[in-house]
């Protein structure tokens, strides 16, 4: 006994040409929706992560770094950067009214040479005053960092327990950080004491960090937290006027630049997803109307044999649902195969923070994309089914006889 409920699957399997065309169409839709959504979500997640990781109201960097956008490039693209200013600027910053806390960092770029394992950004921080790096280092490394101990970003190819050679100094990897989707993933973190040792080692290799010939004590950036109730803009201006050869930048303005660019990309991608959905829906609609016309006699025969209008509609919708689910799943799988492994390339191309959402969020996005494909397919087929339901089977069966 053949049950009519099996008819949609039989139709799809025994008419492979037609089925493949429909599956490809729905796969394209699934690919666009899922791939596009993951990119947009990753960009948003990247921005959010960047905001969290910066964790300061104001950042003070050497004027030279600000003008060359070196700091932003380092944050977003993971390019190495080394710029220095006098450590006096930390004291000067702390003197400004409204500054609650300030923490300095020192940057050093290792070389792609025999003296170093890899070319990498090294960031030194003071565990005593730091409120930026320390909290998230504590998530991956329970103990305090000792001399020549480092914590590596997720993109650094070194595991916990291994050693990294930086200017001939062997640094022990004590922990790995979670991904941030920013350039900070390609950096190595150590205490200021370790950094001073590395700076000396670098100087021995001819890499100078001195701002002036007699200035041994340098820093690269100061992260400032503003006391509650104070206007950040005014404090920023005060710091700018109080420090030397340094630029004070409001974190929000830096984020706003990134956010603006991200918003543009996100809007474009979202617009494209919408356009693809509408286009695919229209193509599916036309395809289904054509298929329904071609199969009009087939459907009229089913009516003649005793299939009700509702049953016939359900059969047509089920056939399209099977197509949509298969095509949608294939499209999502193809998008995942393309977007997941090439996320680093996408990040580099877009020059924006890019952090892939967690597995449950990705699973939900995939389910949502599948639902959107299913909706487009069944809506298109429902329209065709509605038209067929109104056609008189007797008249259809007589056509062409």
């Amino acid at each position, binding site marked *: *006994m*053949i*049950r*009519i*409920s099996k*008819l949609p699957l*039989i*139709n799809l399997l*025994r*008419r492979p040409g037609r089925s493949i065309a429909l599956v490809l169409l729905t796969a394209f839709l699934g690919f666009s929706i899922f791939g596009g959504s993951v990119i947009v979500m990753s960009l948003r997640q990247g921005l959010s992560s960047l905001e969290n990781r910066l964790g300061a109201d104001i950042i003070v960097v050497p004027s030279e770094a600000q003008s060359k956008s070196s700091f932003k490039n380092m944050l977003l693209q993971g390019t190495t950067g080394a710029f220095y200013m006098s450590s006096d600027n930390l004291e000067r910053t702390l003197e400004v009214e409204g500054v609650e806390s300030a923490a300095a960092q020192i940057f050093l770029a290792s070389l792609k040479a025999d003296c170093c394992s890899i070319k990498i950004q090294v960031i030194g921080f003071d565990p005593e005053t730091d409120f930026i790096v320390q909290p998230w280092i504590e998530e991956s490394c329970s103990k305090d960092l000792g001399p020549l101990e480092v914590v590596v970003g997720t993109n650094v190819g070194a595991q916990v327990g291994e050693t990294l050679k930086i200017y001939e100094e062997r640094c022990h990897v004590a922990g790995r950080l979670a991904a941030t989707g920013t350039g900070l993933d390609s950096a190595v973190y150590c205490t200021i004491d370790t950094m001073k040792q590395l700076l000396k080692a670098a100087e021995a290799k001819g890499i100078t960090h001195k701002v002036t010939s007699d200035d041994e004590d340098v820093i690269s950036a100061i992260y400032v937290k503003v006391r509650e109730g104070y206007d950040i803009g005014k404090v920023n201006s005060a710091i700018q006027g109080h420090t030397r050869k340094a630029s004070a930048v409001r974190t929000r303005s830096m984020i706003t630049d990134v956010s603006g660019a991200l918003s543009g990309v996100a809007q474009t991608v979202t617009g494209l997803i919408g356009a693809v959905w509408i286009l695919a829906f229209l193509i599916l609609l036309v395809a289904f109307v054509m298929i329904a016309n071609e199969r009009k*006699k*087939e459907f*009229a*025969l*089913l*009516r*003649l*044999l*005793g*299939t*009700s*209008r*509702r*049953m016939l509609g359900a059969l047509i919708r089920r056939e399209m649902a099977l197509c949509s689910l298969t095509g949608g799943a294939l499209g999502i799988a193809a998008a995942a195969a393309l977007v997941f492994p090439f996320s680093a390339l996408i990040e580099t191309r877009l020059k924006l923070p890019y952090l892939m959402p967690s597995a449950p969020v990705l699973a939900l996005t995939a389910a949502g994309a599948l639902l959107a494909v299913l909706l487009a397919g069944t809506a298109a087929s429902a329209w065709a089914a509605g038209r067929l339901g109104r056609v*008189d*089977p*007797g*008249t259809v*069966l*007589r056509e*062409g*006889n």
Partner: protein
Amino acid sequence: MKIEACAIEKWYFRGKGDTNRFFAVKQTDLTLEPGKVTVLTGRSGSGKTTLMHMLSGLLTPDGGKVLADGKDLYAQEDKALSGFRNAHFGMIPQGADVLPVLTVMENILLVQGIYANQSRNPGADRSVGVQDRAQKLLGEMGIADLADVPAGELSGGERRRVCVARALAGTPDVIFADEPTSDLDDENMQIVLQMLKKAADEGAAVLIVTHDQEALDYADVCLKMHAGVPGPAVQTEDREAPSCQEGGAGSDLQIV
């Protein structure tokens, strides 16, 4: 099962506007008796198929009623009417239509499979032994070896015979056969007509719409359609010499 048409009619509008009304079937009374073969002949476009579709619950008449054992067919919702058609009617469509993706046997068994999933299967009792009957019918028509062949690969004559087997396998109460012998050679034509006659002998009401004069040999009631009106009934006592009368322009003809 007895089918009674009470003053049924069907019209269409031709051209623009609602004024040019064309009657495909003029007001007609007709009865299909259980155990009898009614043969309806007539020129192309005379309204034979339209009349048959109205009698079989496929085409709602513009006037009148169709009763199946006293039950008004078109008073039912589409779902109930479809289930009723599936359970009680065997249909041989004019175009020898089959589902091309299904095999010959699947085409035949699908009729019983339409309501197989439902708790209230109107034709459940008829599905018992249907495969054996289908195989036997295919054998009698010389196409038993085609049972597993996709129906889309069949010739016109083979499709016609599949349609006959599909209509008869479920032992329906009423059989509506629209040109059941076209595309068939003489031998198969006789076989198909004998099968329909046999179904009537077993209690079914059979309506054959045809151009083939040979069908008249098997008719208990013979009608000739003309301009939307079936001619007066003739009870054929002698199958060797059936006589049919052409319908006139009148209406409200009682056919017994």
